[in-house]
């Protein structure tokens, strides 16, 4: 196989850049995290980045058709939890702002039209987004990054195969 010896190692060099791709993932500062689950109601859990609950944090909820005036206000409990039932007749992005001690965050919860029925909120569960998804691709990576990472893995496998074939 002419030229096979020259393939031995340097085609694997791009794989060394994979850790750099990992480092290219977004760098975020300290702050707060708000997660939520959907059941008969929306259940929020607000925590600081260090895992401490945002006990007593201010909660302000805005309905989709009025992003200026709060639809509801309240406070988290000692575990940073807060539960509410969005008005099913107001479909769209419900915004929930949670603030405490100079830290805060907003989550956007999409609610589908006609969620509530005579059977209750349960039938509308599937129309909620169960988790917040990163913007711009899977895991926060751009489509180009995903494509290149996939190509690098394939290229690395080919290079490795050629390396061992050449040793025989």
């Amino acid at each position, binding site marked *: 196989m002419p*030229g096979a010896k020259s393939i031995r190692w340097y085609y694997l060099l791009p794989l060394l850049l994979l850790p750099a791709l990992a480092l290219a993932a977004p760098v*975020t500062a300290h702050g707060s995290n708000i997660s939520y689950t959907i059941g008969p109601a929306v259940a929020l859990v607000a925590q600081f980045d260090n895992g401490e609950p945002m006990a007593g944090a201010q909660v302000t909820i805005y309905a989709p058709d009025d992003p200026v005036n709060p639809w509801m206000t309240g406070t988290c409990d000692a575990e940073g939890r807060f539960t509410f039932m969005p008005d099913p007749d107001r479909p769209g992005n419900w915004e929930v702002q949670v603030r405490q001690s100079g830290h805060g*965050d*907003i989550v956007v919860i999409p609610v589908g039209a006609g969620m509530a029925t005579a059977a209750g909120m349960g039938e509308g569960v599937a129309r909620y987004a169960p988790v917040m998804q990163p*913007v*711009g691709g899977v895991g926060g990576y751009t489509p180009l990054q995903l494509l290149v990472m996939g190509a690098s893995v394939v290229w690395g496998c080919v290079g490795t195969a050629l390396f061992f074939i050449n040793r025989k």
Partner: protein
Amino acid sequence: MATWRVHLVGLTLLTALLLSGCGNTPTAAPPVSSEVGTGTLEFRANGEDFVRQGFVTSDGWAISFDHLYVTPANLTAYQSDPPFDADAGGMPQAAVQVSLEKPTTVDLAAGDAQADPILVGAVEAAAGRYNALAWELVRAADGPADGAVILMEGRAAKDDVMLPFRISLDGERAYVCGDFVGDERKGILQAGETADLEATFHFDHLFGDGSAPPDADINRGALGFEPFAALAQDGMVDVDMSALQAGLSAEDYAKLTEMHLAHVGEGHCQNTSES
């Protein structure tokens, strides 16, 4: 030799492809739509009460600022759909965005203790909901802060000691942030009206907050003022990055260079210059 060339080209192309995926460059702004009407979108910078009114640091120094210069540039407002989450990374996906590109040096300490956030500039923009903001902090090209990315001038007092200070920080930065988090909503622009967006700077992250417990998160990561006070000469702290690198401990200097001051109200931003 020919085989080497082929391999070299392949290797170069792959490397270039890999590196090209690392950037987070905002896309060019589409033209302002006239269908929804336009209004005026103001970009403001805010050092909050910590800068306007002064505060006590985590190590007990009472700080007041005479001037605090920063130079925002390339301020870009996005109508992001879906709403942008800075913690998730990436960049806003926006059909409409507007920018104020020109670097403008502003003094966050200007005005009295109740002054409004400082106006950086305004642009005509399509009406709509601007729910994400990106900006850069660049070195001032002229004026009182010439050469500095952040220039802090003021006084620090503790016990019977009073130290004037002039602290010049280097290191340009770029940030991208989601919606403003605070007492009011921002960036909701109606046709024919004016709305604003705010780049907020939390200097308590640098000096700590004496009103918070010593073990509070805000104070664990802060330098306080004592490390700067230790660099005083002839009764004044007058330092730039070279002096800080030489005078601060390695740990404190690392904290300083990694300090994350940028917010949108209380909402956090992503430092894209570290990506």
